[in-house]
């Protein structure tokens, strides 16, 4: 019968100790006399604008004069989170570094604390690095006192996620604007956009065959675009010459023949620079359509020469001066 009684007694004592130990921990200890301690704080430089995930670093330099000494075990531990009325504060101790210097009459403890914010909200809210309570022991006595390190107040800001915030509902003068300075980026963007626009316009101007830009969509521009789509055979060459004939006729307003090229360039001086090429074109046309024995030396395949010629005529059409010299050099190659 003695053994069951003993077991019951042990279980009862264990249960009582489990309930009474926390109560013992919450026991309010007397504050240490301020003449024995001095506290120096090095707090974060700003006290607002912290969002979830940010870290705040704080250094406490605690000087404890003898006969008191700091109970190291009373220092907060990593992961510790204050609670208020059972609710976590959302500020968690992420790291703690302690350095101690002992002197004959005092000891200096440099406590480096790193807190991390784990709270967020839709508005800016006040938060606090609560003053940590550390315990001091009187040497030679059983007396234990406590010291409350001053707290640090700051404010957390909301971290808005796209789609989760309705500005109409959330707009409040109390919410500070959270903007980055994007002037440099905007300027770069504008320059890049302008450059891109000009490049696209230039590209359209060169390759385009529409009429919505000045001097675009001319007869030779259209012919030039169509030339590239024609097959590379005899029928394609004939069609290509047809296209260029039509373009010349369209520009002149009437049919142009080999013996009226001079009249054509007189009527359309923009094409004066290309007169030798126009005359060669008519020779090519004569060779292909009327008289195969017409002497002609183009220096390159007829279709290729025709495209070059049509591009030069398109340049003339746009008021540009065709690079005939370069074309003739490339033709020789």
């Amino acid at each position, binding site marked *: 019968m003695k053994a069951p009684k003993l077991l019951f007694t042990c279980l009862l004592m264990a249960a009582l100790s489990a309930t009474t130990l926390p109560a013992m921990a919450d026991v309010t200890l007397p504050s240490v006399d301020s003449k024995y301690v001095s506290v120096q704080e090095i707090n974060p430089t700003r006290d607002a604008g912290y969002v979830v995930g940010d870290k705040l670093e704080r250094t406490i330099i605690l000087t404890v004069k003898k006969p008191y000494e700091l109970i190291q075990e009373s220092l907060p531990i990593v992961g510790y989170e204050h609670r208020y009325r059972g609710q976590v504060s959302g500020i968690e101790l992420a790291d703690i570094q302690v350095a101690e210097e002992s002197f004959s009459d005092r000891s200096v403890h440099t406590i480096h604390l790193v807190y991390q914010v784990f709270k967020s909200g839709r508005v800016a809210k006040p938060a606090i690095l609560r003053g940590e309570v550390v315990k001091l022991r009187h040497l030679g006595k059983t007396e234990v006192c406590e010291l409350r390190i001053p707290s640090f107040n700051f404010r957390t800001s909301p971290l808005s996620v796209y789609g989760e915030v309705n500005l109409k509902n959330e707009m409040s003068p109390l919410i500070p604007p959270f903007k980055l300075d994007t002037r440099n980026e905007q300027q770069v963007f504008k320059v890049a956009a302008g450059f891109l626009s000009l490049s696209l316009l230039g590209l359209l101007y060169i390759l385009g065959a529409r009429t919505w830009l000045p001097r675009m969509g001319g007869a030779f521009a259209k012919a030039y675009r169509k030339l590239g789509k024609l097959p590379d055979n005899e029928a394609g060459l004939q069609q290509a010459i047809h296209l260029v004939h039509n373009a010349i006729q369209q520009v002149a307003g009437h049919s142009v*023949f080999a*013996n009226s090229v001079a009249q054509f360039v007189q009527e359309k001086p923009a094409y004066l620079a290309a007169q030798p090429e126009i005359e060669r074109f008519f020779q090519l046309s004569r060779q292909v*359509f*009327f*008289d195969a*024995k017409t002497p002609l030396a183009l220096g390159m395949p007829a279709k290729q020469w025709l495209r070059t010629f049509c591009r030069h005529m398109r340049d003339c059409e746009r008021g540009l001066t065709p690079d005939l010299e370069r074309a003739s050099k490339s033709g020789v190659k």
Partner: protein
Amino acid sequence: MHDHQLADWRAQALKLESEVNKVVVGQENPVRLITIAVFARGHVLLEGDVGVGKTTLLRAFTRGIGGGYQRIEGTIDLMPNDLVYHTYLGEDGKPHVSPGPLLMSGQDLSIFFFNEINRARPQVHSLMLRVMAERTLTAFNKEHYFPHMLVFADRNQVEKEETFDIPSAARDRFMMEIPIVVPPAHDIMESLIFDTRFHDVDQLITNVEADVLKFDQLNSFAKVIQENISASPALRQYALNLWLATKDPTAYGVKVSNVDMKRLVLSGASPRGMGMLLRAARVNAWLHERDAVVPEDIHAVLHETIAHRLVFSPVYEMRRTEIAREMLSGIVNAVAAP
């Protein structure tokens, strides 16, 4: 073989032109057109004022070509038999018959010049048209042949009194109507007045080298030209379009100032006219040392071979020359080749 023949004859043709141009100054284009007509074997209607050198031009050509040259003046009382024979009383008091201008040179007749043809009666026209078409004539119970004959006729367009307009069917027999005008260059005009060598036509004509060509070989050589100068499919299509445009110019957007185009053309070019156009174009290509006809060859002879064949509404006949020229220029501008 033909290449050499073509080249040799070309050299002779150009020499003939050169010889004629020595005595008839400022008429290079008419000379070229007559050369073309000679080698295309086509009759020519000359249009021009009096005294501009038509007779001199034809005599110069006749001397260069060789063969006989005959001329007759068109008058209102001219009868068809006046072209064939003359009747007169001889010194013996008996009536005599001698050959008229058509028969006088026999088969060697090379150029027959009918001056002011529109003053002759339609009966005379009728005879001439038959001779032009068939180059034969029945007279004195005998068939007379003129295989080498080309007819050059002149019509006076200034005076309309006592004239008989040549009907369109008659005009169509002529390959070309060539305008002969006074050269506009002042130095040439001055030369024509003051250079005494132009005053004696007989003497002037002797400056042309005689018999540059062989008139009796022209027919056969003309055939060689027509057979050896080709026309590509594109050229054929172009000629066809030109023909269609003469029939319906409005379909090709051709306009003539102050003319209702819908009422203008009663009849376009005839098939014979288009055939003559291509014959002349081939000769032009040959003269330019080409083996094939190009559109420019057609242009070179288009006005002269087609204008006189067009039949206009009577209301526009008074302006025929001007309208025909403007309409054909419009057709050349409107029809593209290829």
